[in-house]
């Protein structure tokens, strides 16, 4: 094998070209890492939202609670289904919820934006067991009070004590909650009846969340309700529901890879160009190596390694650059709702981006390396 020092020093000697070519890989890999970390963060936020004991019900034909509408009789019926856990007083653990995306106009500045508001009853806090207060208190029934998720607080900079104009009323912020990074953190929670009367939705619900004793029980409950003849609802365990929501990012994922491949093609041609130039300049050296007895495949390997070296250098910088996005929080709208998430760079992403860079390096280096392999020693030295 041709010693690695040969490749290393050649890259070093023409360091400007090396770095410029490597920079192409840096850009692609950084972009890829950031795009994947973005999707990863969204998926993580979605999946964290589900509690495996919970079954979420939607009106027939709806996959998303934004469009779901269920009436009181149906809700009352499903709440008493077999398999729903009960509290100490014998009442089913069921949370009736009304979910609305409402206009909000901030006091200063004239830009409208949407807030996601969830009206709930006290049972909600037993069903959504992971939700807990960070500061302030919960809203009181019958009052125009809201508690806000910490994602909302972060993106809108609301404080406890602020009032929000939602519908025709002023609502006061009384508390901040968190829920292990779940989608709820992007929401405002308030009294169900207060919200319903504001928006003329009395007797209508977006969803009912039923809590089973065990995850296994939840699966069975969902299954039974889906197949039931007497009630007509969609029923999914929460993890499944949120996973489906995350699947909406599939298209984005495809788009991310398409972008990466196009950018990667740029890097690929960059390294190809650089390596062809290098081989042109070093054809006499190749000839001498062959005369000394190095086989053609050793030459091929040597120049492939050199291309891979460029890709590795650029790729490493790219990973480092992309990893800087790790933990950065943003909000993103998924379907009709917005979700707060943190960019998440993890091992598989780093490995994926690394392999991508090396693959591009390999493809870009292959043609030049093949031409190096085919250098005819006597002709090159003449």
């Amino acid at each position: 094998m041709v010693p690695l020092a040969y490749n290393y020093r050649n890259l070093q000697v023409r360091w400007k070209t090396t770095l410029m070519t490597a920079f192409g890989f840096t850009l692609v890999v950084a972009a890829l890492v950031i795009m994947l970390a973005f999707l990863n963060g969204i998926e993580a936020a979605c999946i964290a939202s589900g509690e495996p004991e919970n079954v979420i019900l939607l009106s027939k034909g709806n996959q998303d609670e934004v469009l779901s509408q269920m009436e009181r009789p149906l809700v009352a019926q499903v709440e008493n289904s077999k398999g729903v856990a009960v509290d100490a007083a014998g009442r089913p653990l069921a949370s009736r919820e009304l979910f609305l995306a409402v206009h909000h106009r901030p006091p200063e500045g004239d830009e409208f934006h949407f807030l996601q508001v969830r009206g709930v009853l006290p049972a909600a806090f037993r069903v959504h067991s992971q939700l807990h207060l960070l500061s302030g208190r919960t809203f009181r029934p019958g009052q125009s009070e809201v508690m806000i998720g910490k994602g909302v607080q972060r993106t809108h900079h609301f404080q406890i004590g602020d009032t929000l104009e939602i519908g025709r009323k002023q609502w006061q912020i009384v508390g901040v909650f968190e829920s292990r990074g779940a989608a709820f953190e992007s929401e405002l929670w308030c009294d169900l009846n207060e919200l319903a009367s504001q928006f003329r939705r009395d007797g209508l619900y977006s969803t009912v969340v039923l809590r089973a004793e065990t995850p296994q029980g939840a699966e069975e409950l969902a299954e039974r309700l889906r197949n039931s003849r007497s009630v007509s609802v969609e029923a999914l365990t929460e993890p499944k529901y949120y996973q489906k929501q995350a699947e909406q990012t599939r298209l984005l994922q495809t788009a991310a890879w398409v972008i990466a491949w196009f950018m990667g093609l740029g890097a690929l041609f960059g390294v190809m160009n650089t390596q062809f130039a290098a081989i042109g300049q070093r054809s006499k050296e190749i000839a001498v190596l062959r005369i000394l007895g190095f086989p053609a495949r050793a030459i091929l390997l040597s120049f492939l390694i050199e291309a891979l070296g460029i890709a590795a250098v650029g790729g490493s910088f790219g990973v480092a650059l992309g990893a800087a996005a790790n933990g950065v929080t943003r909000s993103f709208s998924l379907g009709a709702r917005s979700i707060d998430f943190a960019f998440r760079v993890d091992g598989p992403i780093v490995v994926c981006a690394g392999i991508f860079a090396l693959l591009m390096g390999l493809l870009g280096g292959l043609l030049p390396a093949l031409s190096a392999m085919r250098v005819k020693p006597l002709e090159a030295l003449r």
Partner: protein
Amino acid sequence: MSAQPLIVVDNVAKEYMRGSERIVVLRDVNLEIAAADFVALIGPSGSGKTTLLNLIAGLDQPTSGRIWFDGLEISKLDEARLARWRTNAVGFVFQFFHLIPVLTAYENVELPLLLLNLTARRRREQVLMALDLVGLSHRLHHRPGQLSGGEQQRVGIARALVTDPKLIVADEPTGDLDHVKSGEILDLLQSLQQELQKTILLVTHDPAAAARARRVLRIDKGTLVEDRSMHSGRFRLFEWTVQ
């Protein structure tokens, strides 16, 4: 001279095709070279010197005829075998040195050893010995660019002899050097033959260089026309076309 020649060139011809035109570069070459001889190959430009050297050194194959080296018919070997054989049997010295610029003198000399199954320690010993032989022990870690032309050629010679080959071929090794440096390089080649019993095949234009050889072959238009043994003072002129 030993009875068994190291190299036997038997009725060799070399032709090239340029388009549909056939160019005969060598024809009817018959030659024997004894082990540990120092042979100079001279002749006008374009007469076929380099072509013949390349055939003997296993860099190219004759169009017809056969070549033996130490009993092995090298004109029969495929490319891979020929390459392996070259590493072991032949050392190459070039007119323009052809050292790898990014590698140090030490690393340049080590290159051919990487193709053999040697321990790192053994390689190191051989590299140091070769560089010592050419008087460059104090320049181990210099790059070619940091060495004079003469020094570079001595590194080239060290690289040629580091695998301890039987044959060292040198195509105009002094063509790019001044008079004094040329003398030093020729001294070195001569000592390789005299002290290490290497067989030297030297292609040159320079009469002074040819004068160092024990045997001088002259080639003209692709045929050997003169074969002179210097040490005995004998002079032979062959009609090479009639063997």
